[in-house]
Every structure is written in structure tokens, then in C-alpha cells.
């Protein structure tokens, strides 16, 4: 009897480690995992990077690393160091997370310069685009993770938000904040936003779609009006001409025939679109609800919403222009495989 109880307790403990810990989003653990008091444990200041500990410079907020340092790895793993999402691997990532992986734009993958956002510290500025995001105006500087020139934290691109140039300062407090859903898209508390994207709502998958299954995935917020809390609006902060409501009638149009592919519009209930009813990780849809709790495998034509991430990864993908599938494949079936998720009769 004692043995059985012992086994059950052990099993429970293992399950707790395997399944409970990943649910904890707020950073936990020893302070020294992320912070260093003097940045002088060795003879010279040390910094944690994707290459490991290297001589470096002291970082703001006493951090041992920059954003990239902590969210990168020399392995192929994509959730490491407890529960840190890895967005930059120096080896081909075995299971890239929902945003994709900057591996695909790095010099380690030299053909992929146009496969993602060219973040300072990971890649040089886009050799073709410079500082000008397609569909927008010049950032004036190379793209960064956060802040004035980035996507996360206070970039000043939401009405009522003020830009903070320093990347760390721009997401100050976010890693220690309470990000328990539902996330309301706060302009003052970065932690209360989907993936620290200021003003944006949504629900994070426990493993950020590492398992890439439609039974558990991120739920992105979409809208069929000019709402500013959608994941596509976040993209439109820089790529405005490509967004239905930001680009407006002259850039995208107001109805079919669209001038550019619309985003933040409902998947049509009629015609070929009505056949998209099972959530497809190749071309996912957003939800109009702030905190969708319905069946994750369902797609509701007429209700669910097209978004930028229906076709693109946020960070980088193995494919040209960070498309979610190989739109440039020489095999047309493969090239059109993502289009055909919605355009079901165009296969």
C-alpha cells in the first residue's frame, strides 16, 4: 500500500513538473537567473547570449542579457531554461513557436535574409527595404524587439501610449507582471497584453504552439471594425497600407473587389470560404471575442476573422517574406496549400 501511494505521489510530482510549470507565465526562480548585481562575476563583465556566457557589457535593469540573449539558444530547443520561449536558435529549431524563429534570417541560414523581421542584434537591416517597412513609412532606425523601433512594449504607436526608446525600459515590469488571462490590452501595464504587445488582446497557448496542433493554440484577437486591440492592428502600426481599416478605401478597399488582401475582416460565410470549418495551423484565423473559450478546432465562417498571421509568421519563417508555407515552392500544390485553406476552390 505504501509503495502504491509512493508511486502515485511520484507520478503526481512528475506530472506537476511536466504540465503545471509551463502554465506559469510570470517569471519565477532565482533572481540571478536573469539579473546580475555587478556584471562582474568574471574578470570582465559577462553577458548571456545565444552563444552562452561571453564577455559583454552591463545591461539595463541589471539584466544578464538583452532580449535576444535570454530568448535564444545554441540548441534546437524552443522552450528552455524553465519556461522561456526561444525565438532565436543557432541550430534549425525542431519545433518553432507560433511567432516563428529568427534562425531563418540569420547568417547561419544565409538564404533567408528576406524570411523575417531583421531585428538589430540578430541581422543587419534589410538590405532591400532599409528602415522602411513595406506599406509604411521609415522607422528611422533598424527594427528592434521592443520600444520605439520595435513591436513589444511601449512603442508609442497606440493612441495614448508614449514611445520608450530603450528596449528594456519599454517592457519594464512585464516579466514580473500578472499575465493571467483574460488580457485586457492595457496601455499602462505591459504584462496585461498579449505577448507584451501593447494594446493587443488574445490568449496564449500553454506551449506557444510548439506542438503545432489545432486542439490547443494561440487565440488571436481580430475585429471587423477599426479596433486597435487586434493582432493585425499591431502589424498595421508599421505596415498600415496592408490593413483594411488603417489602409482604408484607397489602399485596401472596403469590399470585394479588394485592392489589397484584406485583414481584420470576417471570413465570408458564403462560397468557397464556407468550407473552412476546421482550424488549420497553416492558415489560422482570429476570433472576434476578447477571450475566446470555444472549441479551438472550430472555424466559424461569417464570424472568425482573417488576420496578418493567417499568412505570415511574426518573427521569421523558413519561407520568403515569412509566409507560413512555401508560397514560392516549385510544386504548385505546396505553393498554394496555405491559400487553399480559405480559398478552398482554388486548389
Amino acid at each position, binding site marked *: 500500500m505504501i509503495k502504491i501511494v509512493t508511486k502515485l505521489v511520484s507520478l503526481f510530482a512528475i506530472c506537476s513538473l511536466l504540465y503545471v510549470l509551463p502554465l506559469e507565465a510570470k517569471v519565477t526562480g532565482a533572481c540571478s537567473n536573469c539579473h546580475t548585481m555587478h556584471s562582474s562575476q568574471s574578470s570582465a563583465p559577462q553577458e548571456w547570449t545565444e552563444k552562452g556566457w561571453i564577455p559583454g557589457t552591463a545591461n539595463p535593469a541589471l539584466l544578464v542579457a538583452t532580449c535576444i540573449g535570454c530568448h535564444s539558444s545554441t540548441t534546437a530547443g524552443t522552450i528552455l531554461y524553465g519556461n522561456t520561449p526561444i525565438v532565436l536558435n543557432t541550430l534549425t529549431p525542431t519545433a518553432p513557436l507560433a511567432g516563428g524563429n529568427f534562425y531563418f534570417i540569420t547568417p547561419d541560414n544565409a538564404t533567408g535574409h*528576406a524570411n523575417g523581421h531583421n531585428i538589430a542584434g540578430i541581422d543587419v537591416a534589410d538590405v*532591400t*527595404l532599409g528602415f*522602411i517597412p*513595406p*506599406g509604411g513609412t521609415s522607422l528611422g532606425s533598424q527594427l528592434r524587439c521592443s520600444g520605439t523601433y520595435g513591436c513589444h512594449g511601449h512603442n508609442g504607436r497606440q493612441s495614448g501610449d508614449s514611445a520608450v526608446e530603450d528596449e528594456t525600459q519599454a517592457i519594464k515590469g512585464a516579466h514580473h507582471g500578472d499575465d493571467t488571462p483574460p488580457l485586457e490590452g492595457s496601455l499602462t501595464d505591459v504584462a496585461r497584453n498579449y505577448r507584451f504587445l501593447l494594446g493587443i488582446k488574445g490568449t496564449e497557448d500553454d506551449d506557444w504552439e510548439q506542438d503545432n496542433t489545432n486542439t490547443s493554440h494561440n487565440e488571436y484577437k481580430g475585429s471587423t471594425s477599426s479596433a486597435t486591440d487586434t493582432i493585425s492592428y499591431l502589424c498595421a502600426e508599421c505596415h498600415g*497600407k*496592408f490593413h483594411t481599416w488603417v489602409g482604408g478605401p484607397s*489602399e*485596401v*478597399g472596403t469590399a*470585394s*473587389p*479588394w*485592392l*489589397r*488582401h484584406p485583414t481584420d475582416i470576417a471570413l465570408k460565410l458564403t*462560397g*468557397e470560404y464556407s468550407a473552412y470549418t476546421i482550424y488549420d495551423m497553416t492558415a489560422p484565423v482570429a476570433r472576434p471575442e476578447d477571450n475566446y473559450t470555444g472549441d479551438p478546432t472550430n472555424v466559424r465562417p461569417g464570424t472568425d476573422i482573417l488576420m496578418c498571421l493567417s*499568412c505570415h509568421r511574426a518573427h521569421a519563417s523558413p519561407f*520568403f*517574406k515569412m509566409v507560413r508555407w512555401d*508560397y*514560392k*515552392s*516549385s*510544386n*504548385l*500544390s505546396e*505553393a*498554394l*496549400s496555405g*491559400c*487553399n485553406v480559405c480559398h478552398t*476552390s*482554388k*486548389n
Partner: protein
Amino acid sequence: MPDVIKRSEFMKKYLKNNRRLIHNFKFVSLRSIFYALCSMLSAHVFKLLALSSMLLAFLILCWILYPDKANSGPYLNSAHGNSIYGVNRPRTSGFGYAVGNCVHCHEQHASIAGQTITPYGYELFYDHWVEICDLFCYRCHNQGGVEMQVNNYPYSVNFGGEPLFYESIYKQFCDLNSTGSTCGSRHNLVPIRNLIDNNAFGWGYPADPDPCSACHNPHTVQRIGSKQYHAPYNPDKSPISLPSEHANNPTNLWGDDYQVGCPLGKKERLICYASSVVGVYQSPYYGNTTGTMYEPSGNSTPTDGSDLPDYVSFCLDCHSKSETGTKVIHWDTSGDKHGGKISGDVDCGALSGFENGDLRAPYNDALKEAGNNYVLSCTDCHEPHGAKNRTDLLRRFINGEAVPADTAPCMDSDVNDWIAICERCHTNIHVSFGNCTVCHGHNTSIGCPGGTTRTF
């Protein structure tokens, strides 16, 4: 030991001698039986494995040879989505997109790698409609196309055997010889647009529609041709779609679905229309009048319209509507005599004595003599796009013979110009009543005691 004997009996009963691994039954055990059964099973499994491996190898070979067919649907089976001769624009092929990729027509953001273009409706790279001779399709369907130079010859060339002329769609619509000033004609795209726009008749076309899309679905349209160009002629391919199916059956091509007996859903050929109006179809000669080649394939058979799309139903989709000035055609049993109306001699009592044009081959055959009513296809006489120096979209090559150019004054007031058309199928052309149009034309009747008689 009795237990062992039982097992031995089992072995004797179920195992053939040549399959026995254990010959001394005294030592038979459960394990040995298991081995024996495995041996039997493996012999069959090997065969199955070999067969499945061969099948798998065959499938892999097919996939390598025809990768796009592995999961092909309407678009990948279409002319535009073909990986060899499909759409392929220089700007987008320069970025490495494969032939047939959507991006060659649709630029989702009107911007690739920082190179932006003006965005147009349907995310096209050019406006789908500016005016009759300036529209998206001509960027490629034009012998001098800006993006591609696609040759598509007139119907009478492809399916009638006429020598080459008018090598592109653009030319058929926009060449000076297709305009009224030269007695030419073209299918007027403006009333087509006006007829179908704003979801007219519930067909589902938008405001400001692409007029070409009235007849052609760019995502399903298939390449089809005659011996001269894209041999062999394949009636199971079709370049046309019914306008009335634009919304409710959008991927259906018109003319490709046929089965003997014309069952529901398989009656898209002219033989089916002809039988629906109690008539028969006879294919015109192709290329010459020797009687060895017939439209549309240029083959000797079939000649009954079983390989020809039902162009009557197709054209009547619009030409049964009077809106926007569309010419209404009556082709059923109470309509024109070239259609379902019985085409017997005109005989109306006091008015009898009218001359009748006798028929020429291949229409003067036993079927006709037996009283069968020939039902023509619109395309037997008309071009769908444009006619060079001929009014009313009339072909320059009918029933295997050339038709001379119309000359001023243009056809409707010139009896000789009419005769040049009619005598392709008729003899004894009469002119005693003056110009042909006095009595003949679509929807033209003459009064007879007890009713009227169609004269065309």
C-alpha cells in the same frame, strides 16, 4: 504427454507438410506452434509487402513526374494554374515564383520586396476594366502583351479549320477590322458588363465586373484546342462557364460533363440540347468540304455534337435576356428554324410558292430526308469574340469553306454579303424578294394562314 499429442494433431490439421518447421511432433510446444504460424504468415506478408512496395514506388514515381497533380483541383487543372504553360509574369517570376502561382495575377499587398505597384481590384496587377480595349486580360492575351504574349485564335481557326489569323484575343476584339468602320464586329463588352453587374439575375457578379468573367472563370478555364494548335482535341476540357452558375456553381465548367443519354449533370454537350428540342446536331465540315473532318475536333467522328459544348444553352444564358439591349434569341421548338423549330419547307396556302434553300452536305443526308430536324450551334456561324470584316460576329469560315470579307455597304443592306454566308450550307439561294433580311433573321417570321412561320 496427451497435451503434446493434441498439439501435434493441430499441426497435422492446419499445417501443410512443406511448411512444417517441426517434424518431430513429440517436441512440439506452444512456442513451436507460434513459430510455425509466424512462418506461414510471413510467407504471405512478404507477398503483400512486395505488392504494396511496388504500388508505393509507382505512386512516388507519379508524384515525382506530376507533382502538381498529387493534390490538384480546379485551379491546378486550369490553363492559368498549369505549371508549364500557366500564368508567369516577368516581375513575379523574377522573384522566383513558380509558373501558375497566384502571385502572377494577384499581388496580395501590391508590394514585393519593397517594389510597389498600384493596387487594383481583386488584388490584380492591373485594372480589370478600363475600356473595351484596355483591360487586365489583355496584359497577357495579346500578341504584344505587356506581361505575356498568349496566342488564342478565333473559334473558326481552332475548331473550324480556318487558316491562321487574329492570333490573340486582344486582336479579335480590338483590331480595326473588328470594328464597324470595316464591316467588322466584336462582342460588345460594355453591354455584357451592364447585363451582369450588381448581382443581376442573382448570378453573383459584382458592380463593375470584369466582362471576360461573364463567360470565362479565370480559376477554372481550361486550355482546349484543335489539331492545329493543342492537339489532340479533348472535349473533356472546357474554357467556358455558364454566367448563371457564377455564384451557385462557380467551379463548374460548361461543356466538359457529358454522358451518353444526357443524364442530369452530364448533359453539357450540344447533342443533349438538340435532343431536348427533339432535333439532332450535325457537325459542320472542318477545314474543307471533303467530308473527312468535322468540327470541332477535325476528326471524322463524332459528328453528332457529343464532343461540342452546348453553346446554345451557354449563349442563351444572356441572349434570353432583353436587358441592356441584348439580342434575344429563340432557339427552342417555337423559335428559329435553325434551332428547335421544325425546319420544313415554308408552305402557307396562298403564300405558298416561296422558294426554299436546299441543304448542302453534310446536312443533305439521310437524317434530313428522314425528317429529323437539325439544330445548329451558335458557333457554327458566329465567332464568340470578334469577326474580321463581318458584321454580327459572323465567322469567316463556315462549314469548311471560306467566307469572303464583307464590303461596304455592310451586310444588312447588301444581298451579296448575305449570300456569301447562306450558301455555305444552302443551295438555290433566292433573291426574288430583295435583300435577305426582308424575310430572314433571328426571330423573323412571315405570316401564314393559321399562324406564322419562322424563316431563319
